[in-house]
């Protein structure tokens, strides 16, 4: 299996990347099975909350309010975190964030680092940068460990190894940990990972985490996880570096009450996630004694400036939209060419790339709206997808080479056709005559040239009837007169 390209600046267009995955029947089976299981759990846990819709409304309101006042809440976070003994760094983009983290690690003379699962670190391509600087990186989240040892890439925001089944995990562990006769029993596999990781927890003095939430009021950082690896990273190492997108901030500590409820139920179908860690600066004699927070912008301020697109930043990374998405179900996450896949990835990635890359992602959706229906913070993903499609098309309007693209031409022509009933009637006639050349004796079209071939590759098309509805109506009107 070739390694998926997860850097949006060089990833192939979505339809091309999807082709590779669509041929991988094992991967598609794994994704369909895993998402079915999570969805069923989520549905049960959401149904038992009679006030689920009110919770969603509250969660969305908190996130929208935080974003509308982001500047002041970030400053408040910085102030409180600093007072508590933390050091806050500001990174405008991925390169600056990498440089800050690398500098901090060099100050620690670090040669090894342990990590709690962080999608943001994948967003800034942190691991390759650290490895290139001679620092060994150990992922401590079980799924991330599987991927790291297997030379694979994350395909899901919450369950990064969702596309891998346990037989494949057994093979990876047996090969990379040198364990013969390993069974594919989940308990045996977990125990193997535990033994492997325990040495790292005990020996590596520097850890890197992401953040689920930053609390402005207290300067606290919150991380939720299911395995206890985060808890280990927060107790044993000497130094902790947290990388967080600037949108992660919540105004008040009590806001966690709402958001932790909707997050756990939406993400894993649990009433509460197994481990919720909250820490505030440095506490003498307890946990890391040096604590840094790197606040990452990397395109987020620009998203914030666009009224319709801004809601993208409300995301709390629960991945409910991935699990319900009929596109993601077929392709998994790798086809999106970014650590953020699925519907939220389709709107987040191109915006983080400032619409210079990943322009095929906003089109990677049938706009079915299943994502919006499950989103715990009510992000209207279809609305943002359409807004981004318009941004992409507006770019194309300025590129003469794109004007001859059949889709672009077709859209411009259709616009002229729909401008008057006379032109529309003429187009109806022309398409009937044109398509009759391709219509078989059974009255159906089995094969079309050009763009039409993308339809007829799997579907027939009924030939255009002799009489349009408007012709029938006009004839009937005459009869009745």
């Amino acid at each position, binding site marked *: 299996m070739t390694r998926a390209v997860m850097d949006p600046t060089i990833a192939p267009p979505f339809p091309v990347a999807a082709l590779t995955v*669509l041929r991988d029947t094992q991967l598609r089976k794994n994704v369909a099975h895993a998402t079915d299981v999570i969805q069923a759990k989520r549905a049960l846990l959401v149904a038992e909350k009679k006030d689920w819709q009110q919770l969603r409304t509250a969660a969305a309101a908190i996130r929208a309010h935080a974003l509308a006042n982001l500047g002041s809440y970030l400053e408040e976070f910085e102030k409180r975190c600093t007072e508590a003994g933390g050091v806050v760094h500001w990174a405008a983009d991925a390169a600056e964030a990498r440089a800050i983290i690398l500098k901090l690690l060099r100050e620690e003379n670090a040669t090894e680092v342990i990590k709690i699962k962080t999608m943001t670190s994948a967003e800034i391509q942190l691991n390759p940068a650290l490895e290139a600087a001679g620092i060994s990186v150990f992922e401590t989240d079980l799924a991330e460990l599987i991927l790291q040892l297997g030379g694979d890439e994350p395909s899901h925001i919450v369950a990064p190894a969702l596309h891998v089944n346990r037989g494949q995990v057994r093979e990876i562990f047996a090969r990379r940990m040198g364990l013969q006769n390993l069974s594919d029993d989940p308990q045996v596999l977990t125990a193997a990972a535990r033994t492997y990781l325990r040495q790292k927890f005990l020996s590596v003095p520097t850890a890197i985490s992401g953040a689920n939430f930053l609390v402005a009021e207290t300067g606290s950082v919150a991380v939720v996880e299911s395995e206890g690896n985060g808890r280990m990273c927060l107790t044993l190492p000497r130094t902790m570096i947290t990388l967080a997108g600037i949108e992660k901030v919540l105004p008040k500590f009590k806001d966690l009450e709402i958001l932790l409820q909707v997050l756990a139920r939406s993400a894993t179908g649990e009433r509460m996630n197994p481990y919720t860690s909250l820490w505030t600066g440095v506490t003498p004699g307890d946990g890391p004694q040096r604590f840094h927070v790197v606040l990452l912008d990397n395109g987020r301020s620009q998203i914030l400036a666009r009224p319709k697109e801004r809601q993208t930043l409300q995301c709390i990374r629960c991945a409910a939209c991935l699990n319900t998405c009929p596109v993601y179900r077929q392709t998994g996450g790798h086809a999106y060419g970014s650590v953020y896949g699925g519907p939220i990835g389709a709107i987040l990635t191109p915006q983080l790339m400032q619409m210079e890359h990943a322009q095929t992602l906003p089109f990677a959706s*049938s706009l079915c*709206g299943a994502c919006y229906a499950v989103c715990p913070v009510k992000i209207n993903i279809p609305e943002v997808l359409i807004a981004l499609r318009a941004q992409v098309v507006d770019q194309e309007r300025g590129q003469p080479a794109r004007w001859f693209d059949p889709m672009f031409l077709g859209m411009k022509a259709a616009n002229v056709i729909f401008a008057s009933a006379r032109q529309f009637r003429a187009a109806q006639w022309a398409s009937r005559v044109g398509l009759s050349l391709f219509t078989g004796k059974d009255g159906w079209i089995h094969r079309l040239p050009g763009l039409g071939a993308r339809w007829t590759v799997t579907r027939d098309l009924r030939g255009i009837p002799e009489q349009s509805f408007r012709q029938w109506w006009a004839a009937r009107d005459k009869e009745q007169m």
Partner: protein
Amino acid sequence: MRASLFITCYNDTLFPETGRAVVRLLERLGVELEFRPEQTCCGQMHANTGFGCEAFAQAKRFVRLYQDSESVVIPSSSCVAMIRDQYAGLFEKYGDEELRKQLASVLPRIFELSEFITDRVGVEDVGAYFPHRVTYHASCHGLRSLHVGERPLRLLGKVRGLDLVPLANLDRCCGFGGTFSIKNSEVSSAMLETKLHDVVSTRAEYCTALDNSCLMHLGGALHRQYAGMQTIHLAGILANTEESATEKKA
């Protein structure tokens, strides 16, 4: 009761039998229907493909055309969703105050066909007869944008002779998505295959829906695969009566 029929561009061209069925059905229910030949398209294809200002031209045309209509009935949930969900945004961006007022005035008078029959005409038993095994596909826009809910199923439940078979994974998209089916043809086809599995498993004779767009997608694959199942718009079933069935045989 009077109503204007907005047939939609693709029904007009590709599925005129649906339009004829709507006319037969609604006239039978005592609705005085009119058809304004100036109509073309609601602009959905352009809007959803990113051509906002082109979509605006069609949206403007639509809103002006139906200013004085008592009701506008549309046999397509996705076109209704376009009007309800996207016109306001387009008029915000490209339109003026006058146009926004006209939109606000016309919006409450827009009905998808099953909404029109149950909410406006106020009947569930339309006197239809369709002695076949039928499954109902819930098109995404009807389900999640219009929230038509049980309306189509209640209408189908009252059709004499009809054996309604439930469809598994009712809320899952068929993969059409307009230009998505062309731009992402392979993914769209994979989604269609997943949907077809559920549809064919019902062993129904007909698959029905509120939208001929989904049905064109499903029907195209059913035909390609010689699946022995046909697609029919909800209007086609509801228009059918004992008398019309006898007429056909004679």
